[in-house]
């Protein structure tokens, strides 16, 4: 079974040369640390920066240079700052190639729920609804089951949706899955995890064709 870093490492392999990538808060943020350094990738943050670099050295933090998680960051050569309208032009206009974000639930038709639990405090969707409604290529990074052990890969989402029919791929602590017309297609197993265990943990339709290889999380 993968930990969060393992999930991030596996997703990092989906990041291709020349991609502009938007990373959500949580596991997705970790992905930046594991992208191969022999490819060219630029990270966009929807608060208005393209070409994000690592966190600043202590003492070099700038309150005017943060990411969407409100963390202090740095920029790399070739970076740019822009306003919120232009930022979402990049997103809505499909100029961002890959969006990686967390989820509470994903349905076998590609629906995603990740912003609201009725009865609990709602913090808001931030840029997630714009991202999922626009991106051609959305990868969800999440645990396969919730804290109660219930599957997060469902026939239909039970929580209020963030977007409809938009998720293309899911990487969990147990598996890599593709969203197809017929359901979740199992692509890879996490090291040491059996197909049976994945079946067990998946409420939605699971498509298993042939031998399912084990993931390689190393670049």
């Amino acid at each position, binding site marked *: 079974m993968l930990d969060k870093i393992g999930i991030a490492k596996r997703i990092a392999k989906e990041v291709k040369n020349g991609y502009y990538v938007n990373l959500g808060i949580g596991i997705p943020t970790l992905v930046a640390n594991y992208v191969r350094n022999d490819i060219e990738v630029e990270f966009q*943050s*929807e*608060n*208005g*920066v393209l070409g994000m670099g*690592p*966190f*600043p*050295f*202590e*003492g*070099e*933090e*700038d*309150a*005017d*240079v*943060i*990411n*969407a*998680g*409100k*963390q*202090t*960051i740095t920029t790399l050569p070739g970076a740019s*700052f*822009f*306003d*919120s*309208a232009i*930022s*979402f032009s990049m*997103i*809505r206009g499909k100029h961002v190639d890959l969006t990686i974000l967390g989820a509470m639930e994903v349905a076998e038709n590609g*629906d995603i729920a990740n912003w*609201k639990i009725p009865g609990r*405090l*709602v*913090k*808001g*969707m*931030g*840029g*997630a*609804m*714009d991202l999922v*409604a*626009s991106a051609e290529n959305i990868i969800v990074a999440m645990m396969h089951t919730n804290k109660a052990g219930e599957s997060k890969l469902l026939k239909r989402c039970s929580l*209020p*949706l*963030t*977007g*409809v*029919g938009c998720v293309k791929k899911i990487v969990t602590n147990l598996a890599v899955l593709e969203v197809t017309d017929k359901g979740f297609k199992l692509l890879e197993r996490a090291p040491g995890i059996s197909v049976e265990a994945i079946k067990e943990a998946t409420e939605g339709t699971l498509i298993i064709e042939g031998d399912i290889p084990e993931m390689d999380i190393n670049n």
Partner: protein
Amino acid sequence: MINKKVANVEEALKGVTDNITCMVGGFGLSGIPENAIAQLVKLGIKGLTCISNNAGVDDFGLGLLLQKHQIKKMISSYVGENDEFERQMLSGELDVELIPQGTLAERCRAAQAGFPAIYTPAGYGTEVAEGKETREFDGKMYVLEHAFKADFAFVKAWKGDAAGNLIFKGTARNFNPVMCGAAKITVAEVEELVPLGTLDPNQIHIPGIFVQRIFQGNHYEKRIEQRTVRQRN
């Protein structure tokens, strides 16, 4: 040159009354109009409807207005990080309308640019689109979202001049430019009000025509919400 300079925040906020709708720039605590918010607190303005991406933290940003129960309604995309906000929302004291961040930006920009409404894919099929008109273009579904109508826009820039021209810094730019000219009166506060002719006309982020009043702010705290650093090797 049409002079937009006012002497101070008192003059800049003249005409602000209870129950107005105002846009407030900033993302998190970055690029927020600290002086205008402090003055709204000082004036004790009540019943505010605030259009702002976030709602500050308990003791800073719009949180200062929430503490004093001066905000009636928030229109935002993300309102975490604020206990008092949570309390008021759950108790029903505070009305909260959550909308997608890109929609928030573009409803401001629509007001600035004279568009009545826009079609955005964001929120289609979700509760955000409930009761709203939807429409298909080229096989994709969009939601009709209307331009905001606001009385005041409070924005914060890095540098500005008496003509109202503004330059922002880094990610403190965020929603500030799209709110300029999106309300009846745009009040810009700047860290540095520079002499006319100092700013390169080619490098102005917001031309002065979108700004009605400008003043140099004081004592910017520029608080950092999440201080993240890396170790030196």
